[in-house]
């Protein structure tokens, strides 16, 4: 495998690892290195000195073509999620800009798309392939969990721990510790 071919796969691997890192942690505080690592991976994958050999050249070309509509689609989706009344009131500006970007993404996609009957068969096969891989993964996770030895039953709280939990609850309910 040539250096440029390896660079494409290395970049893709770093991108996926970065996205995986970003998904860890609570929703309000994601992993700080997730997005930088993913962007580094994209840079490694797409910026190179020489054209990568076959078949990686087709992968890079297809990714660049898809980026023309995927980038506005991703940005628009993020803005719509920020502006839609999911957790709080509607924020009109992000919502409208997000929808404008989604419309642009669909326009870009329709301007380059070409649908053939064989694409449907290929699409169904792709979905089956993804489903098979995820099913094997789920089965393996279940097997790993079943093989994990059971933890012994937890001891009840000691008096000291009970007092600590009680004081935490009281603090959060804004009740004074003093009777």
């Amino acid at each position, binding site marked *: 495998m040539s250096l440029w071919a390896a660079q494409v796969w290395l970049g893709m691997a770093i991108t996926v690892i970065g996205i995986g890192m970003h998904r860890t942690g609570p929703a309000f505080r994601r992993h700080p290195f997730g997005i930088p690592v993913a962007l580094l991976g994209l840079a490694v994958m797409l910026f190179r000195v020489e054209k990568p050999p076959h078949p990686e050249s087709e992968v890079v070309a297809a990714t660049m073509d898809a980026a023309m509509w995927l980038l506005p689609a991703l940005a628009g989706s993020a803005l*719509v999620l920020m502006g839609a009344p999911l957790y709080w009131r509607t924020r009109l500006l992000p919502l409208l800009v997000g929808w404008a970007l989604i419309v642009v993404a669909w326009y870009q996609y329709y301007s380059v798309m070409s649908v053939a009957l064989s694409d449907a068969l290929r699409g169904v096969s792709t979905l089956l392939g993804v489903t098979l891989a995820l099913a094997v993964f789920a089965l393996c996770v279940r*097997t790993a969990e079943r093989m994990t030895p059971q933890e012994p039953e937890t001891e009840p709280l000691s008096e000291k721990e009970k007092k600590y939990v009680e004081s935490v609850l009281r603090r959060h309910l804004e009740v004074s510790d003093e009777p």
Partner: protein
Amino acid sequence: MNPNLELAISAFAGSAALTSLFVILTLIGTLNPYHRPAIPILGASFVIFASTYLFAHIVGIPANSIALRLTMSEGVLALLDIIPIAFLLCTFMFLQASLRKRPEDPLLALLESEPGSE
């Protein structure tokens, strides 16, 4: 073999192999002391090698590293082809989310009515 069927099997093998590669990479990216990734990684590796073997058999090439690269490339192209379907579903969900009215929350109303709240 029918060229359409060959394309479909290639897409199947490619997408299965690439999804399994993504599973392994995500397990690496989310590694923590409570993980037990050995069996899922073995399972995903098995899918990758089986898909590569199937792809090489269909195309008529030896099942080596070139076949692995071709399988993964086929997977990328196949997944890029079905992303618009996922985006179409997402667009409908965004439309629902944008047009819905949030139900009144009595607790939030209480919070807003307090002096000094936003």
